[in-house]
């Protein structure tokens, strides 16, 4: 079985994003970028499935600017076998629906048994792409996975749901999206980072797949969230109790 792992280059999760003064978006100039944390978990899971002898090849794919090749190299250094970059213009914003359509075209060409995506990207916080891909392919989806067990013709996915956990059984090929608890992603070692530079990385364009990536949503403006007014510090527990009484909760 082949596994396809889509990865996204996003602002590093430790960076506090700054809204541009003109309200057109978030300032990404000179900001540290990294692989979306959920996608690292997806790459790790694919590697573990391969290490367990249940997959032969891992293909990482990213849709984004030329720099997204760095993100793919990270996936290759972790253990992916080859990569595909669908390059878009520097100012292009490719929405989940367009990404899902591009991934559908790649799935049709590559025929993976499993596609593992992150549950959401930490920049647009959409949580849509995996579900949309599953819909377009008419395949089952195992979203928010905290455990994945691959068998001959199906995959069992334990999902993190409100209130607890739920297990579903999906026929293969299937789409799985990762939650935080699925695994602890490995670090790429220096020798593997060097080796990753020699692994194949194909560069394509959306036109190669005949997909229109024009956005359906127009961002009218991006603003800072309301700022909370400065609070006070109380000296001791008695003062805190008094405050709680004022608030009517004690």
């Amino acid at each position, binding site marked *: 079985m082949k596994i396809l792992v889509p990865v996204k280059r996003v602002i590093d999760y430790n960076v506090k994003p700054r*809204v541009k003064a003109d309200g057109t978006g978030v300032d990404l100039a000179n900001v540290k970028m990294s692989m979306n944390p959920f996608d690292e978990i997806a790459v790790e899971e694919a590697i573990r499935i391969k290490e367990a002898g249940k997959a032969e090849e891992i293909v990482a794919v990213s849709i984004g600017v030329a720099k997204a090749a760095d993100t793919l190299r990270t996936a290759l250094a972790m253990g992916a076998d080859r990569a595909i970059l669908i390059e878009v213009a520097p100012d292009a914003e490719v929405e989940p629906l367009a990404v899902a359509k591009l991934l559908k075209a790649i799935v049709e060409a590559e025929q993976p048994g499993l596609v593992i995506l992150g549950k959401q990207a930490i920049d647009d916080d959409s949580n849509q792409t995996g579900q*949309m891909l*599953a819909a377009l392919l008419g395949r*089952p*989806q195992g979203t928010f996975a905290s455990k994945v067990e691959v068998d001959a013709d199906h995959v069992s996915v334990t999902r993190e749901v409100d209130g607890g956990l739920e297990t579903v*059984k999906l026929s293969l090929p299937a789409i799985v999206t990762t939650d935080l608890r699925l695994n602890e992603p490995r670090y790429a070692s220096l020798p593997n980072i060097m080796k990753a530079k020699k692994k194949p990385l194909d560069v394509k364009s959306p036109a190669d797949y005949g997909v229109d990536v024009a956005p359906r*949503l*127009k*961002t009218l403006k991006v603003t800072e*969230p309301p700022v909370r007014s400065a609070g006070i510090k109380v000296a001791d527990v008695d003062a805190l109790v008094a405050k709680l009484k004022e608030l009517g909760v004690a």
Partner: protein
Amino acid sequence: MKTLVWVEHDNASVKDATLHTVTAAAKLGEVHLLVAGSGCAAVAEAAAKIEGVGKVHLADDAAYAHALAENLAPLIVELMGHHDAFLAPATTIGKNVAPRVAALLDVMQISDILSVEGDKTFTRPIYAGNAIATVESSDAKLVITVRGTAFAKAAETGGSGTVEAVAATGDAGLSSFVGSEIAASERPELTSAKVIVSGGRALKDEETFASTILPLADKLGAAVGASRAAVDAGYVPNDYQVGQTGKIVAPDVYIAVGISGAIQHLAGMKDSKTIIAINKDEDAPIFQVADIGLVADLFTAVPELTGKL
């Protein structure tokens, strides 16, 4: 505009998340509901009484028993033939099903809306709530998930909707439900609680978390939450996690105990009316958003607080 709202239920009653979603839907136009499940006729009757509700579509079939997206999406797509917008609460069920529906309708979903600014214009948080985007859809039909804490609850009574059965679309045969482990809790539900006591990494272990946080929560009739660190360390189950990737809450009072206040945690609770932080590190980022802060060792301060309430 005719809207179709997904009713989240447990076969007995309508979940609060739905009531918030109805309020958002009412801003767009006529509100119709979809109650899907197995043996859920009573829920449809209750749903019809929600204020402002018109028709309640009842799809009662074994295929809908566990809200599998593969079986629900075709049903919703069919109903969208005569609705203009589909709204679901941004719960794990809503987030699982709605994008599947959107893709089948060939429209972009608008996730986790905070407000309705116009027929096709909405605000939503991006970058872990560090920015708010105003977006306008150019799609013919809308698929939206709604952040419950951003909209008031619709009244559960006063409505006079009519229940209408809809034909099931059957089992897609792609997936099946194996089982679930739902944590039983007598405390209020996290996302609708008025008061939340949350604990972080500083709580040390499962026993210390239980012996420190739970008595305070019980004294206040509060729900219990946690930071990712506390969940990862196994102090509490996953579904206690408050944050960007866990639950988004906005209670009247949020008490953060031993939580430093990382961006990802703040994303889930910074819309709380009053935030109280107890932390021994006076430079912890949590104090930048806290209305009331107490710099103290939680192991002495929390039991003392519990005792004095």
